[in-house]
């Protein structure tokens, strides 16, 4: 159990990408609500950000509106905000996880790493499975929509 705290491999999601924009621009896209609202959330979703205080201890309230009208409420607290370097925020609504986004300036490009650490491997699996079920339902709804549209032709 002791090494569980240090070793997060089995309970984290890790992504990285080189983005074709200088760090100042990428930072702006991540930290300003009027920008992040445009790209956050799955396809077909819209977002409402009622609060986003990008500073340590600041709150971030975001509601994702699903295509079927379901609202997904997300509340996070910013833990660390280091200009053009790092943002750490804690998702305090379920599922609990801590996100660390790091920005590395590479000339006109930015290397971004994105790590989400969940409390346990089981929670990550549970969430992933539920998400898979939701995705599945969404795809079914999309298929049905396409099918119905084809019927009307």
């Amino acid at each position, binding site marked *: *159990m002791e090494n569980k705290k240090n070793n997060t491999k089995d309970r984290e999601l890790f992504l990285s990408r080189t983005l*074709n924009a200088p760090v100042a621009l990428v930072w702006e896209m991540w930290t300003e609500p009027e920008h992040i609202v*445009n*790209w*956050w959330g*799955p396809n077909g979703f819209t977002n409402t950000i009622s609060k986003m205080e990008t500073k340590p201890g600041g709150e971030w309230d975001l509601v994702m509106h699903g295509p079927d009208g379901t609202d997904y409420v997300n509340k996070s607290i910013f833990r660390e905000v280091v200009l053009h370097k790092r943002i750490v925020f804690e998702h305090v609504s379920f599922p609990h996880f801590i996100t660390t986004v790091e920005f590395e300036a590479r000339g006109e490009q930015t290397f971004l790493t994105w790590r989400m650490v969940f409390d346990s491997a089981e929670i990550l699996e549970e969430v992933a*499975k539920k998400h898979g079920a939701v995705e599945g339902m969404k795809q079914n709804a999309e298929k049905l929509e396409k099918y119905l549209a084809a019927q009307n032709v």
Partner: protein
Amino acid sequence: MKARRDVYQAIADPTRRMIINMIASQPHNVNTIAEKFDVSRQAVSLHIQILVDCGLVVVKQQGRERFCEAHLEQLSEVSHWVGQYKKHFEKKLDALETYIEKIKKERNGKQKK
């Protein structure tokens, strides 16, 4: 309500995960497994039974001994879901890339004017 018996239930408990680790490379006798844990033999038997019900373990009788054998194919189901979940965040990065291109174009346009 019927108890949930799937791969997620199987790996939800630390003792069960340790049992799986023990028998993953080679089958173990039930008594040998029970000796490794501080909990009662009955508790270990119950965990083994749950693993059997979840389809991750098969118990085989050999003479007077009972051996636990791991059948771990189902575990890939878990990594499958996690992989799918990860893709969901990859899509966010795709959306970010597209959005960045749009913003860059808008700002370049303004500069030229």
